[in-house]
C-alpha cells in the first residue's frame, strides 16, 4: 500500500525553507528541478501529476521485469525526491478546482507546460493571484512565454544551439559538435530557484507576490559572457578552438596510461609552469628558449601539448593528479560516471547517497550540496510513487472526507 511507505525520513523543521509549501506542476527535467531543490531545503513540495498524461521522466526502460512501470526511472527518482505526489487529472474541471484550493494554501506555484497551457486550464497567474494574492508563481519554458520562438518545439540540444553555447563546442578548425547535456534545463531551473527564493524574500518584507518568467534560452545566453562580450567589443564571433584558454598553456586533457584515461592540466602562471616542470623531473626540453615565458609558451602551444602528452601517457591519471597538485599545478582526471560515484573526495563529502526506493531498493541519488552550516540541503525521502500522498494532501491539507476522495478516484478526477 503506497501510504504505508515511510516517507518522512528527516523532519522538515531542519530546513531553511521549513514551513513553505509549493504546488509543483513541473515535469520532465527543467520543471522538476526547482521543486526538488526547494524540497531538499525543507519546503513541502506537492507534485501534481496524472496518469492521464504521465511525466515523461516516469517512462522508459524498466529495470526490474519487462513491463513498463512509472516507478522505475532512476532519473525521475533523482529530480523528484523529497516531494509529495498528488494525482490530479487537470483536464477535468473538478481537478482544476482542487488544484486551486491547494494554491490557496501554498506560497509558490511552479510549472513548465507549453506557454499558454496554464491559462487554458484556468490556472494562469491572474486567476491564482485572485485566490492567493501574495502567491509567487514561476513559469519555466524553452524560449519564453512570448515572442516568435515561443511555440518552437525545443529540447535541451535546441537551447545549446540557439544560445551560442554550441557554436564554440568542438575541435579547432572543425564544426560545432554540440553539447549533449541538458545545460539549458539546469541553467533555467537554477535561475528559477534563485528568483523564487528572492521573490519570497521580498514577499516577506512587503507582502507582495509576483510572476516569474524564466526561459532556458535566456538563462543559457547570459552564461555566454565571454563569447557575447568578444562579439560586442571586437565584432568577432568565437568558433570551436578545442580545449583552449587565452591565458593558459598547457590547457587541455592529456592521455594517460590505461584504456581511454585522461588528465586535465591547466597552467596559468610562471610558478605553475615551474611546478609542472618539476613534476616532470626537469626534462631537457623544458629549458628550451621557446618555452621560457608564458608569452612564448602561448606561441608554441602545439609543441607543448605534444611534449606534455608524451610524459602523461606513461602514467596513471590519479598518480599524476597527486603529483601535480603537490607541485601546485591544477590537475584532475577526466572522471567517468562510475568513477565519480566512487571517488574518495566526493564520497567523503557525501555527494551521492544511497536511498531506498520501494520499486528498486537501495539506489544512489546525488545530493544538492548546498551546505548551509545549520540548515544544509538534505534528501528527505525517496521520489514519491504516483499519488502516494493523495490522502495526506487531499484529506489532510484540504479536508476532503475519505469517501469523497474515493469517489473522486472512482471518477478519475483524482487519477
Amino acid at each position, binding site marked *: 500500500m503506497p501510504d504505508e511507505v515511510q516517507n518522512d525520513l528527516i523532519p522538515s523543521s531542519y530546513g531553511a525553507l*521549513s514551513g513553505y509549501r509549493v504546488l509543483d506542476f513541473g515535469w520532465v527535467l527543467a520543471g522538476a528541478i526547482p521543486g526538488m531543490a526547494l524540497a531538499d531545503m525543507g519546503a513541502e513540495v506537492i507534485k501534481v501529476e496524472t496518469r492521464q498524461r504521465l511525466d515523461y521522466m516516469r517512462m*522508459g526502460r524498466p529495470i526490474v521485469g519487462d513491463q513498463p512501470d512509472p516507478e522505475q526511472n*532512476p532519473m525521475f527518482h533523482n529530480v523528484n525526491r523529497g516531494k509529495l505526489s498528488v494525482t490530479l487529472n487537470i483536464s477535468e474541471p473538478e481537478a482544476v478546482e482542487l488544484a486551486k484550493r491547494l494554491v490557496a494554501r501554498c506560497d509558490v506555484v511552479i510549472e513548465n507546460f507549453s506557454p499558454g497551457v496554464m491559462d487554458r486550464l484556468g490556472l494562469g497567474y491572474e486567476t491564482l493571484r485572485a485566490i492567493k494574492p501574495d502567491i509567487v508563481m514561476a513559469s519555466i519554458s524553452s524560449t519564453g512565454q512570448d515572442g516568435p520562438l515561443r511555440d518552437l518545439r525545443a*529540447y535541451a*540540444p535546441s537551447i545549446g544551439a540557439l544560445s551560442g553555447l554550441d557554436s564554440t563546442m*568542438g575541435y579547432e578548425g572543425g564544426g560545432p559538435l554540440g553539447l549533449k547535456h541538458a545545460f539549458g534545463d539546469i541553467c533555467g531551473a537554477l535561475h528559477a530557484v534563485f528568483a523564487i527564493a*528572492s521573490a519570497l*524574500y521580498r514577499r516577506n518584507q512587503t507582502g507582495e507576490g509576483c510572476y516569474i518568467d524564466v526561459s532556458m534560452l535566456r538563462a543559457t545566453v*547570459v552564461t555566454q559572457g565571454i563569447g557575447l562580450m568578444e562579439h560586442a567589443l571586437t565584432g568577432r564571433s568565437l568558433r570551436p578552438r578545442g580545449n583552449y584558454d587565452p591565458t593558459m598553456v598547457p590547457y587541455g586533457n592529456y592521455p594517460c596510461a590505461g584504456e581511454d584515461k585522461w588528465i586535465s592540466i591547466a597552467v596559468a602562471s610562471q610558478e605553475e609552469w615551474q611546478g609542472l616542470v618539476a613534476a616532470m623531473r626537469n626534462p631537457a626540453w623544458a629549458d628550451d628558449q621557446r618555452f621560457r615565458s608564458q608569452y612564448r609558451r602561448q606561441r608554441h602551444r602545439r609543441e607543448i601539448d605534444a611534449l606534455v602528452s608524451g610524459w602523461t601517457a606513461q602514467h596513471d591519471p590519479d598518480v599524476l593528479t597527486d603529483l601535480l597538485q603537490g607541485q601546485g599545478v591544477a590537475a584532475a582526471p577526466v*572522471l567517468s560516471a562510475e568513477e565519480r560515484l566512487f571517488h574518495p573526495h566526493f564520497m567523503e563529502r557525501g555527494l551521492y547517497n544511497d536511498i531506498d526506493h520501494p520499486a528498486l531498493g537501495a539506489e544512489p541519488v546525488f545530493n544538492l550540496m548546498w551546505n548551509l552550516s545549520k540548515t544544509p540541503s538534505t534528501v528527505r525521502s525517496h521520489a514519491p510513487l504516483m499519488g502516494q500522498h493523495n490522502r495526506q494532501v487531499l484529506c489532510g491539507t484540504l479536508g476532503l472526507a475519505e469517501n469523497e476522495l474515493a469517489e473522486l478516484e472512482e471518477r478519475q478526477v483524482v487519477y
Partner: protein
Amino acid sequence: MTYSLLSGLRVLEIGSMLSAPYCGKLLADAGASVVKLESPETGDPARRYGPWPDDNPHPERSGLFLYLNANKQGVTANLETPTGRGIMRRLAASSDVVVHNVRPADMDRCGLDYDLLAADNLDLVMASISPWGLSGPWRDYKAYDINLAAAGGICEGLGEAEREPLTFGTPEVGYFAGMAAASSIVMALLARETHGGQHIDIAEAETMAGLYNGPEALMAVYQWRVTRRTGHHALDFPYPNCILRCKDGHIFVGSPEGRQWGRLLQIMGSPEWSQEQRFRNRTAMNNLYADEVDGYVESWLADYTKAELLEIALEHRIPLAPVRTYDEVRADPSLADLFVVIERDDTGPVSYPGTPYGLSGDNSVPPSPAPTLGQHNPPILCDELGYSPEELVKLYQTGII
C-alpha cells in the same frame, strides 16, 4: 536590468573571475547593494582576461569584468595586511551577506574566518565558493574550469572517440557555482529569523558532478545509458539527435517523437532510403547507421539556410534549431530586450546580457556600470566606515587600498 526583490540587502563580494562575481551579479541585479572588494594592485583577475574594445587591452575595459561586475560598487583592500583585513572585517560587520571565492588554503590568512566575522555580526550569511569544497582530501587542490569540467563529468562524453575529450568552449562552471551560492544565500536569509547567520560551503566541482551530471552517474549504475565519446552523435537516442550541416552553417536536428520524424520525412519528400527495413528502429539507426543517414539528411539540408529551417521548424512543429554564432544571437530580435546598454566614459555604450528572468509588476531600472578599481573607496571607507580623508590618503600611500 535591476529588480527590487532584494532591495535593502547589503552584500560584500570578494570575488575573482566567474563564480563569486556571478553570484554577486545575480544578487545585485535582484536589487541588493553589492560592494566588491578587490586587491589594490591588480584587482579581480578578470580585468586581465579580456576581451577588450578594439583589442586594446586595459584593466578597466576587460569585457568579462565589465559584464560580471555591473551594478556593483568597488573598494580595494589588501587582505595580506592587518589593516586591510580590518577594513574587510568592518565591511562584513555592516553587511547581511559575504560571498567570496578565495581558495580554502588562503581563507584564514585573508581573515575569511566565519566565526571571527560572525562574532561582530551574528546574522551574517557567508558563502565560500571553492573548487572542491571546504572539506575532503582534495580541499586544497587547485582547479581551473577544465579541471572542474573533467572531474565533474563534462569531458567524458564530449569529442571524437579517437581524440582527446573536450570541455566547454569558454569557462562555464563558475556560473553554476554562482547560481548555487546565490540561491543558498537567499534561502539562508529566509531562515535567518529562526536560525541566525550561517556559513555556506559550495564546491564548484560538485555543482557539475551533482546537479548537472548526478543523474547520469545513476544511469551508469543501471547501465541504462553509458556515456562515451561518439562525436556529434550520442548513443541510445532515436535518430536524429545531432548537429548537421546546412546551406549556411549548422543546424540541430531532433525528433524524439515518431510523428515529428514522420513530418520531417514528409517535408523531405518521403525519400526512398527512409523506407528501408533497417531504419525501422530509430535507435538502431542512430547507433549503427548514423553517418550514412547524416549524408542523406544533409543532402536535403544543403538547399536551406538556418533561417529557412527555423521557419520550417515553426510551421511544422519539428525540433530543428540553428547553431547560432554569437553575432546571430545578438541579432535575434526576440532577444533584444535581454540585452542592456551601459555607458561608461572610457568604453562608450556597450551592450551586455541582462537579467534572464522576467518579473511581473516590477519596474526594472537600468544597471550602473562596473566600478573602476577602488572607485567607491571615498564614499564607503569615509562616509560609511568613518575613515577621514587624511587616513584614506595614508591607506593608499601604504598600499593597503
